[in-house]
């Protein structure tokens, strides 16, 4: 019975059906299933399949994103119960992410956010045109392990350095790792501004984030 439920949970993530995933999560709670088990044996198992299908070229970005959304919907239902039971799911790291000041480009950063969430990171997406002060405040409040900065324009890329300087001024630089990305951003630029990580695409960003967390 529970095994069957876990299978359906996994399938809801594989199919990218967020409403179905949330409904199954609620059903699990009603049936008294341990929320941590539901996450690990149900939804995360589905996410693993999604990741494998993506790796072998059968799944594409929309499949991955919708799988992540389904996972998120399930977690939204299960996490309060998890907390109440005094347990916590394994989180690889907490990431505060956004597009820097003056830049209104959304898609690249959102893609990275989805990929990180799907891979076990807790992601706080601050959106676009985010001031350096906001990154610092949110990094503090969310106890971020990683601050991830996106920029699409050569003109706004400069603000990535700005955020790093603000983090240093706030005394946070030793505690948080900084990742940078975006179309004009290169490893050389990341090195120049003292960022800890750079990746060219969302999949690369996951690998870098894992490395930064010592995984």
């Amino acid at each position, binding site marked *: 019975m529970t095994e069957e439920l876990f299978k359906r949970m996994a399938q809801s993530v594989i199919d990218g059906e967020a409403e179905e995933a949330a409904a199954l999560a609620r059903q699990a709670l009603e049936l008294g299933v341990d929320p941590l088990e539901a996450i690990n044996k149900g939804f995360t198992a589905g996410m693993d399949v999604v990741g494998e299908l993506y790796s072998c*070229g059968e799944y*594409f*970005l*929309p499949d991955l994103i919708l799988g992540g959304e389904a996972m998120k919907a399930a977690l939204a239902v299960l996490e309060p119960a998890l907390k109440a039971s005094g347990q916590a799911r394994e989180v690889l790291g907490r990431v505060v992410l956004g597009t820097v000041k003056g830049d*209104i*480009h*959304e*898609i*690249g950063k959102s*893609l990275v956010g989805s990929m990180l969430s799907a891979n076990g990171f807790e992601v706080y997406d601050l959106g676009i045109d985010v001031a350096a002060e906001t990154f610092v405040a949110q990094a503090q409040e969310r106890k971020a392990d990683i601050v991830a900065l996106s920029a699409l*324009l*050569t*003109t706004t890329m*400069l603000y990535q350095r700005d955020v790093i300087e603000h983090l240093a001024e706030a005394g946070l630089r030793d505690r948080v790792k900084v990742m940078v990305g975006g*179309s*004009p951003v290169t490893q050389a630029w990341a090195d120049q501004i003292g960022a800890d990580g750079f990746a060219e*695409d*969302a999949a690369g960003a996951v690998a870098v984030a894992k490395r930064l967390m010592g995984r």
Partner: protein
Amino acid sequence: MIRPKLEFLSPETVRRAIDEAYELLWDPGVRVHYDEALRLLGDAGATVDMSSRVARIPRSLAEKAVETAPSSFYLYNLDGEPVVHYGGDDVHFDPGSAAIEIADYEARQSRVPVTADCEDFVRVAEMLPQIDALATSIVCGDVPQSMADWYRLYLLLLYGRKPIVTGTFAIETFAIMHELLVTVAGSAEALAEKPRAVFDVCPSPPLLWSDITCANLIDCARTGVPAELVSMPLMGATGPATVIGSAVQHAAECLSGITIHQLAKPGSPIVWGGSPASFDMRTGTTPMGAMATMMLDCTYTQIGKAIKPGGLPTHAYLGMSDTKIVDAQTGLESAAGAILGALAGVNMMSGPGMMDFESCFSLEKLVIDAEIVGMAKRLVAGVDDSEEPLALHVMREVGHAGNFLKSKHTRRSFRKEDYIPSEVIDRDFRQTWFDKGALDINARAHRKVRELIAAYEPPPLAAEVVRELVAIATRHAQAVGLDRLPARTIER
């Protein structure tokens, strides 16, 4: 004579797409991050929410703007000749714009371009007759970023004769670029009368106008310098995943831009253009060489031509490739785009020379693309059937002897009947090709690049105009902390 023409949509679908685009202007409306543009829209009857910065534009208001926007205009070269006609089904090509890298043939890798690269670019682009206009294609890394936009235009004005496709990276730099253009034109009125340049203005998908783009639109309108809308939905990422869906979004973005522009000054020239792309769902890249990208370009072009009687001038980023080096994929993608766009009657295609998702420029590719452009233009010139009789006279004259090389008809006809390529295109007998060094197209193109650079001579420009351009550039460079402009290699 029939002009070969490519159309993807039935008239009924065009009408539905236009209807839906107008509906989008009202619900959900467009986001406008610029107070002056919001005021213009609000004063004219749009419903504006200043806090969310969303403007809901009634169809009647947008339709009026479309009505006042001209169906065609010309761009002029240095000599004041109207060499680019934006309108009808006329096709022109300019190099792709704003590369932050240049493919260095000798080094076999790409790097950040500098002033000397931009100079070489102008030399080559000026010397290629197939290329109708210059573009500010090279973003020089040897000047501060804050002057990188106008500095490109400065170099083109110093060294070039052709019209220019350009754009700003900021609000303030429009005034500097206008000042440079006015210096060469003689006066602001002369520039508006015979515009030398068109400015690309890019809305952010979906349905968002940033402060820079709004300011540029309004400045263009008020100075009479043509604006070129570059709407760029990414299919399935920042726009609907379908060609027709993204074409509708494109139309809505263009219509809102035209509305802001025409409210600033009715009758100013503006182009229905874009740089949309398919979205690679495996890598997250934006392939300019994808078939759906090209189909979307042709589709929105058809819509732009139908948006009013006589249509609007059109533009697209076509003739590009996503490769990092010049290879067979470069050729296949660039040729497909240029040919499809020519068949669709896109007035200006920006693309030759550009690779790597619009970020890397190659002079070798520019030279190869010029051959593609030559072929594409030949294609749309169609099959000339004006001779009467079609063949009887020449067939009977030559008779069974069969040597048409001796016929005057051949001599009279052959030059215009096919596009005659340069030696970049290999048509040698095998042994000759071998004896010439057995070069591949990349090597032949590089040789051509060197030849063109050597053969280039700068067009005549009055000494006082040169002095004034240098003075303006020096003044504005110093304002951003650059004491001396980078050394130039071309005497002026």
